[in-house]
């Protein structure tokens, strides 16, 4: 049942998210949940402010001692140490190579394993309400970054699974969906501090069954939406870029006429068209949901012909069938390792996809598309050793460095290297062992999850919950008593409790 819920909730996200919206089940909570405004990437002042805050919050130096360090970029260090300073990795090496200041907090990680924070290039976690602006075939004007909820408990749960960075995507209900948001899971921080300052802007495209509404019947009274075929999906994408070029031409003409001293009427500003123009200029990275090999080829061809680039193919379950074409285009692939058969276009999904794409030279990652799976992407990476025989080093990159590269953030995340962000996960054993669990997770040098601390907090939480429930019950009892028939509200005296 749970798996089904996952499948329905995420893989067929069009279905449930929109039904949820239609039914109005969540509407009641949408307006009331406290939410911090998101930082707009284009506002440098705010961006600077949150960098400052993040640094201030993680001023404490930390040294992790005596661990097996899986650096990702330069092998394994036995009995290794990492010094964290100012939210960054200041030193990495064997125990004797790493000197730490006397006041640094020491984490004894003897017998434990350390790896960089897991990068999830396909998340819908912390999205408030629906992930789909379902009403238009191209909804590229909307932004997921505007609707992030920093109280989503799944963020904390994912930190407890070692995931620290995520690309939070719009849904797959339309060929061109909304703009997505790259964040760090900075639990406990205002949501304005979540976006990574120098992360690229991104947008979601989607091909196949979801944008053509194959597994979703619109509610009564609502007509079916174009497109209904893969042909229509292609047309929507192509036409959008044709429109964007015309839009640019109109503005160019206007500027030219102005230059000539004429007094032209300016074209109408259109934020959807401006988004499309930014894709053409390479200012927004395209991450496209896709399954079947034919639709993958379609997108690569449209991109070639219309002059834009695809950054990452998402899901890309049949990527192995056209791996050399994907590699030739320099496009990445982020996929589920072993999910298959949940719909017709996932029938030929095989767990060897990751290995076959990797061998063909495709930059490949494993990602979640699920609040649940995002808690153990390390295990999905391990499965690439089992199915298709990737080396441990190659497999470790699937959930760390390769995702960082797909997000164009490998200069700051994805490995344990000096100068990179201190996004670090300490495991009780090798992260590829099913018997291991996360002990501690650091984001930007700050401990945001710790198993021991979590156990202690549970007791406090239980006490607090008990007290609050009691208080509420007491108050209710008191009110009931005061509201006895024959007594008006004015006469009610809460302090009179003789009986």
């Amino acid at each position, binding site marked *: 049942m749970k798996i089904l819920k996952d499948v329905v909730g995420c893989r067929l996200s069009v279905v449930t998210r929109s*039904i949820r919206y239609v039914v109005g089940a969540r*509407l009641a909570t949408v307006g009331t949940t406290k939410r911090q405004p998101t930082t707009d990437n284009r506002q440098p002042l705010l961006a600077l402010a949150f960098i400052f805050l993040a640094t201030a919050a993680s001023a404490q130096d930390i040294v992790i001692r005596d661990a097996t360090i899986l650096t990702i970029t330069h092998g394994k260090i036995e009995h290794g140490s990492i010094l964290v300073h100012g939210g960054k990795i200041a030193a990495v090496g064997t125990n004797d190579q790493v000197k730490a200041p006397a006041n640094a907090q020491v984490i004894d990680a003897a017998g434990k394993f350390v790896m960089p924070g897991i990068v999830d290039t396909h998340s819908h976690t912390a999205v408030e309400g629906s992930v789909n602006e379902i009403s238009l075939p191209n909804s590229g004007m909307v932004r997921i970054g505007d609707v992030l909820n920093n109280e989503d408990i799944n963020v*904390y749960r994912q930190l407890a699974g070692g995931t620290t960075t995520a690309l939070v995507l719009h849904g797959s209900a339309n060929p061109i969906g909304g703009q997505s948001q790259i964040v760090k899971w900075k639990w406990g921080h205002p949501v304005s501090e979540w976006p990574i300052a120098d992360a690229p802007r991104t947008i979601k495209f989607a091909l196949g069954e979801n944008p053509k509404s194959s597994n979703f019947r619109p509610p009564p009274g609502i007509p079916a939406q174009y497109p209904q075929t893969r042909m229509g999906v292609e047309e929507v994408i192509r036409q959008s870029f044709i429109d964007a070029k015309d839009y640019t031409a109109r503005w160019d003409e206007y500027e030219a006429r102005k230059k000539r001293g004429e007094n032209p009427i300016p074209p109408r500003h259109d934020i959807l068209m401006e988004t499309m123009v930014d894709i053409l200029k390479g200012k927004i990275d395209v991450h496209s949901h896709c399954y079947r090999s034919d639709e993958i080829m379609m997108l690569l061809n449209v991109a070639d012909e219309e002059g834009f680039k695809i950054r990452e193919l998402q899901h890309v379950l049949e990527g192995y069938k056209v791996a050399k074409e994907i590699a030739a285009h320099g496009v990445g692939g982020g996929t589920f390792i072993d999910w298959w058969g949940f719909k017709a276009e996932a029938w030929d999904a095989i767990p060897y996809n990751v290995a076959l794409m990797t061998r063909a030279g495709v930059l490949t990652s494993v990602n979640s598309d699920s609040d649940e799976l995002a808690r153990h992407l390390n295990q999905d990476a391990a499965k690439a050793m089992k199915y298709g025989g990737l080396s441990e080093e190659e497999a470790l990159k699937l959930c760390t460095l390769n995702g960082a590269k797909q997000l164009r953030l490998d200069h700051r995340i994805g490995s344990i290297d000096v100068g990179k962000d201190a996004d670090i996960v300490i495991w009780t054993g090798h992260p590829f062992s*099913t018997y291991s669990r996360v002990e501690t997770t650091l984001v930007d040098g700050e401990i945001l999850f710790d198993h021991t601390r979590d156990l202690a907090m549970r007791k406090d939480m239980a006490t607090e919950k008990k007290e609050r429930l009691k208080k509420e019950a007491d108050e209710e009892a008191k009110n009931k008593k005061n509201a006895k028939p024959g007594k008006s509200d004015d006469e009610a005296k809460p302090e009179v409790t003789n009986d």
Partner: protein
Amino acid sequence: MTNEARSASSVAPAARRLDRWRLAGGLLACMIATSAFAQSVILNSPGKKPLVAIRNATIVPVTSAPIPNGTIVFNNGVITAVGANIAIPANATVIDGTGLFVYPGLIDSGSHVGLEEISAVPGTVDTAELGDINPNARAEIAVNPHSNIIPVTRVNGITTVVTEPEGGIISGSSAMIQLAGWTPQEMTLKAPLAMHIHFPRLRSNAFDEAPPDEEAAKEAAKNYTKQIDKLHDTFRDAQAYAKASAARTNNAAIKRIDRDVILEALVPVVEGREPVVIHANLERDIRAALKFADEFKLKVILADAEDVARVIPELKSRNIPVILGPILSLPPHEDDPYDLVFTNAKTLYDAGIPFAIQSQDSHNARNLPYQAAACAAFGLPKDVALRSITIAPAQIFGLADKIGSLETGKLANIIVTDGDPLEIVTHVRRLFIGGEEITLDTNQTLLWEKFKARP
């Protein structure tokens, strides 16, 4: 048209009807031929149950201590000897197990394997019948022995599964099936295995736990009461039906009653001969389920049960076993500990309550061993995690004389591995079901080979 396709069209009645429309008939024949080809690797069993000895392996019988450098012998589908110093029969096929491990085949205590193919394509899904009360629905009737999911389930060592219906309130009965066989009947170890009740839940819609507003809450409560009443009414009718049937059996003079297949399916249940697997997740629902079970004196197995830690004394006092899983799922409440579902197994183990683990899946039932391992990552002893997908389900479902461990006299459901089957990086090297060696090829490995060779 190939001969194969011709013969396919000549035997298929549908194709016969379409003979006049050559094109249509030809197309259908091609489809049949294609699907026959696609399933060619799923030859479930060569039909031989040879005398085999695996020696020099680490043998993990589960019910006793691991045997280094041990030998296991099986013949005619049954284990004939297990131990350190076993004489190998002269005519046995000998497998050298040096560096390898031998375990009993793993058992999934709850799945839909065989009952569905592509989740989003209704024509391929046979898990849920219409309506709330379907005790007469029997899983083994709809198991497709040639489902592509079956070989995929085997790759990580699962040889046996409980496959179950899931619709409505009384969903129907499950079957314990071997993942090999040419017909559902050959596959079936025991059916009906248990009656499955998906206990009514107090909720307003399919997506949210809490009713969003007062009106919806009232509606949900009304609907809930209706469902509970329906369940009670059905069981009272079944009790009366059982009583009437028994009375007539003992006394032919008593007036005949018309047969009712729905109530008839519940007779062994109300008479306590067939267990009921009650699926309930939240504390409130579990308590309601226990009350219901008490009233009708049912032999209960509690399933799903994410809130199980809140009802330990109640389960203990009633001696109710639990089927947990999927373990890799989110906690039911926002304020639950993040590891609630991972730690439930340890909680039950500490309390001495028997439990097994289920995938509650079909396509990825193959990940069952990693679900069990997740419990061990959070405190359950590793050997108990292994038991939860071998001997524990066999005991809970009353099949411990046949499956669940490597013991003389049991079915030769055997896997040979290069390590601990609960670790992802371990490979299953050979797999035997009822003494027959079964291929580890799947359509997925075929596609892998095919596209590895793409020029």
